[in-house]
């Protein structure tokens, strides 16, 4: 166990267990958090991190085990109890009302009847003292994701917690915004506050965390000092075995290759008051290359994907061209018939129908392109052929499941994603557009998906990947463009791209400036 057993522990967890039906989500978890430390909680998706945190925050009640707070045994029966003890939480998915101001949102959660003006003043003071500048009068709908996170953090700090739980805080930030956040965290640590930091980004854990607890399949597999570990050794602890590194061979003669996906001055008016307009987006993806689109969430990537996929049609049919043909006026089915394939960000409810079997979900995107194979005369579905194809994809992509042909909702997020990506790869599409290919997917499966995308491009297809995960984009892309506020920068070749350059563009630096430095470089 840890050396800290002399009463300086703020929080001690002993044998905490949570069982859901047949699944033991947390299995006798032990965890100590000392005063004034940043403690990382590492683990793949489904390792039990969220369940553990929910028990600490009172959203879930453990089946067994004990929690000690400052040495006293406590029962955290609700988030209210957790807040009273001094536990604050910043969620990965914000719960803010876009049509209200920052101060109004904070007032709603405090629920103590103090006037908005005094809350705004307190929030302003607090935000500046922690280097998280925030205007409490601004509408949440107008704020960037990073600024919204500040609201969540300040909302949490206003309750003067001793322990702050942060769930994947940097997944929505630019590298520069993340640096700012780290400064704030270090400041909080210096004040003696403790932080439980949940992340799967090993580099940042190594950078800011004092200790780490690693979970795998609901069990603690190790406590360590992340500074003494390498990213590879941490990954090994999380995954349980070696993660294969993705291999990306350079392509020759890409400059002369045929563009298979051309986007020319694509514009789109915002569909709702809070959606992002697309402004003059242009991009070519050539046969044999992977182009990555980086950007902070909510900068128009979703709108862009819908426009390219044909879920939303364009007025100017030349603004999207697939394999040399105008496709802007074609529906998603028409674009698929031209050889394009699409993987949306949301799996359940967009890429797959949750209550339908995997074989039916195969039919979902391929009923037209594989009409001959899957649909017989008179519109009868060839059930056996669809089932066989689904089984083939399940095998190729190593989809883990509990039944031969389960409902999509019964699969874990990562396994469903493998199936959805595999469903499109199985067609050998000439153009593949993927939004967030490995979001929430465990490391092993993510490597598999990334490698498959690279191989698809090397076999002569054009691959466009939209992702918030910069590590991923640097791993698989031949060039990276950045989407900010509905505008797309010019793609920079991967050899010239750095985290810093991409990060500046993500934060909204003038694209012209970055391009200029590229050209002179």
């Amino acid at each position, binding site marked *: 166990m840890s050396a800290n057993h002399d009463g300086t522990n703020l929080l001690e967890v002993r044998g905490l267990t949570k069982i859901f039906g047949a699944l033991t989500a947390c299995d006798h978890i032990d965890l100590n958090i000392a005063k004034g430390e940043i403690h990382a909680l590492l683990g793949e998706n489904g390792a039990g991190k969220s369940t553990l945190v929910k028990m600490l925050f009172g*959203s879930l009640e453990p089946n067994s085990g004990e929690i000690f707070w400052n040495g006293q045994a406590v029962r955290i029966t609700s988030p209210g109890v957790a807040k009273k003890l001094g536990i604050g939480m910043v969620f990965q998915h914000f719960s803010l009302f876009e049509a209200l101001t920052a101060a109004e949102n904070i007032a709603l959660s405090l629920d103590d009847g103090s006037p908005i003006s005094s809350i705004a003043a307190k929030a302003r003071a607090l935000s500046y003292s922690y280097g998280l500048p925030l205007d409490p009068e601004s509408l949440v709908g107008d704020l960037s994701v990073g600024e919204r996170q500040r609201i969540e953090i300040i909302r949490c700090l206003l309750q003067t917690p001793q322990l702050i739980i942060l769930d994947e805080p940097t997944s929505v930030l630019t590298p520069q915004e993340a640096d700012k956040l780290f400064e704030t965290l270090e400041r909080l640590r210096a004040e003696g506050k403790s932080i439980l930091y949940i992340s799967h980004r090993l580099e940042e854990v190594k950078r800011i965390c004092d200790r780490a607890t690693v979970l795998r399949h609901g069990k603690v597999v190790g406590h360590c000092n992340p500074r003494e570990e390498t990213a590879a050794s941490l990954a090994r602890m999380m995954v349980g075995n070696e993660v294969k590194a993705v291999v990306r061979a350079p392509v020759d003669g890409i400059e002369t290759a045929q563009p298979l996906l051309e986007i020319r001055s694509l514009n789109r008016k915002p569909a709702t008051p809070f959606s992002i307009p697309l402004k003059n987006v242009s991009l070519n993806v050539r046969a044999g290359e992977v182009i990555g689109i980086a950007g902070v969430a909510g900068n128009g990537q979703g709108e862009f994907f819908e426009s390219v996929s044909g879920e939303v049609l364009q007025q100017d049919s030349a603004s999207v061209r697939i394999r040399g043909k105008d496709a802007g006026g074609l*529906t*998603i089915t028409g674009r698929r018939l031209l050889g394009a394939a699409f993987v949306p960000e949301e799996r359940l409810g967009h890429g797959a*129908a949750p209550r339908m079997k995997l074989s*039916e979900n195969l039919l*979902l995107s391929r009923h037209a392109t594989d009409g001959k194979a899957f649909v017989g005369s008179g*519109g009868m579905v060839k059930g056996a052929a669809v089932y066989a194809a689904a089984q083939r994809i399940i095998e190729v992509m190593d989809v883990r499941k509990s039944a031969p042909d389960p409902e999509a909702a019964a699969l874990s997020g990562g396994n469903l994603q493998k199936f959805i990506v595999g469903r499109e790869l199985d067609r050998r599409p000439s153009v593949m557009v993927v939004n967030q290919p490995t979001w929430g997917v465990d490391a092993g499966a993510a490597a598999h998906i990334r490698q498959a995308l690279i191989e698809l491009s090397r076999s002569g297809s054009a691959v466009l990947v939209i992702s918030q995960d910069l590590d991923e984009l640097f791993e698989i892309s031949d060039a990276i463009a950045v989407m900010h506020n509905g505008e797309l920068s010019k793609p920079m070749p991967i050899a010239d791209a750095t985290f810093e350059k991409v990060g500046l563009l993500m934060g909204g630096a003038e694209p012209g400036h970055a391009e200029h430095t590229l050209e002179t470089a």
Partner: protein
Amino acid sequence: MMRLELVKRPQRSALFSMLSPFIAFALTIIAGAVLFALLGVNPLNAFKIYFVEPISQVWQLHELAIKAAPLILIAVGLSVCYKANIWNIGAEGQFIFGAIFGSAIPVLFPQFEGPLVLPLMLLLGMVGGAAYAAIPAFLKTRFSTNEILTSLMLVYVAQLFLDWLVRGPWRDPQGHGFPQTIQFGDSAVLPELMPDAGRANWGFVFALVAAVLVWILMGRMLKGFEVRVLGSSPRAGRFAGFGLNRMVFFAFLLSGALAGLAGISEVSGAIGQLQPVISPGYGFTAIIVAFLGRLNPLGIIGAGLVLALTYLGGEAVQSALGISDKVARVFQGMLLFFVLGCDTLIHYRIRLIGLALTKQEPAAKIEAAPKLKEAR
């Protein structure tokens, strides 16, 4: 102060999903027993008269088939709508317009006879029902109106239109002023299946064929897949390239055509002429049939027979015990109430919350109350 809350269950029980109609039926029987007891009637005796005696002879089974045929035909069409998450409540009006369109031939051209008459009438009946159903479909796709309201209101328009027709332009001149059309000629009457045994006509066969065809459509064909995808996850349906507006028209036209077929079959089979009232609420009762049959066309056949029995039983208790035949409506209402209740409790569990506790409840765990569509 206490508060009731419906909390979504993480898993549905497949067993209870299947049992739900039977549990609902049992609950209806229990509530019905209480009802009869309060009316001062021995419940056992009443149930015998209500549920057993109406089907104890062969000719009575024919009467059952006559009542079940329109219910099944309409409900099968409605099941497609409801699976697509489209709420056609106006089958009664589509039934009436099917009857009016189909009757146009025998009423306006009584001298036109021969084997072509009946097929043409049936076809026109389907066209009439589909055309009338196209109105709410158009309003929904064009102006985003709520199809529940428009289709329901069009029922009253249809009823009044029929009333006007049989009192006005289509009234039988030799009918002594009665509000009805002329009796249809022989070639315009739907033949009985077994004239020696009872009155049941080809309408029941149409119902069975329609149920089997729609069952194949929904379970085996791409179109049925499209219905199910768009109904359960519209965004995934759009990703699949299925058009929601096309689906609204498809579902309304199909269910309208089947309701129209039921209408013309009823008029040319059981009634033999148009009169101000041609339906004891088949179009509404069929909604219950559709849900009691789990929106499955084969289940709907069984549910249609059960609901047809509630009509016959209502007539039977009226003549035998002097209880109003409105009791049939009460039974139908209870059945729908209990089947929707069972379905809701399969998807959700009830939580009682004292007000003192509610303050600390995490908002994220609380689901919105279920809508009707969750009952599927």
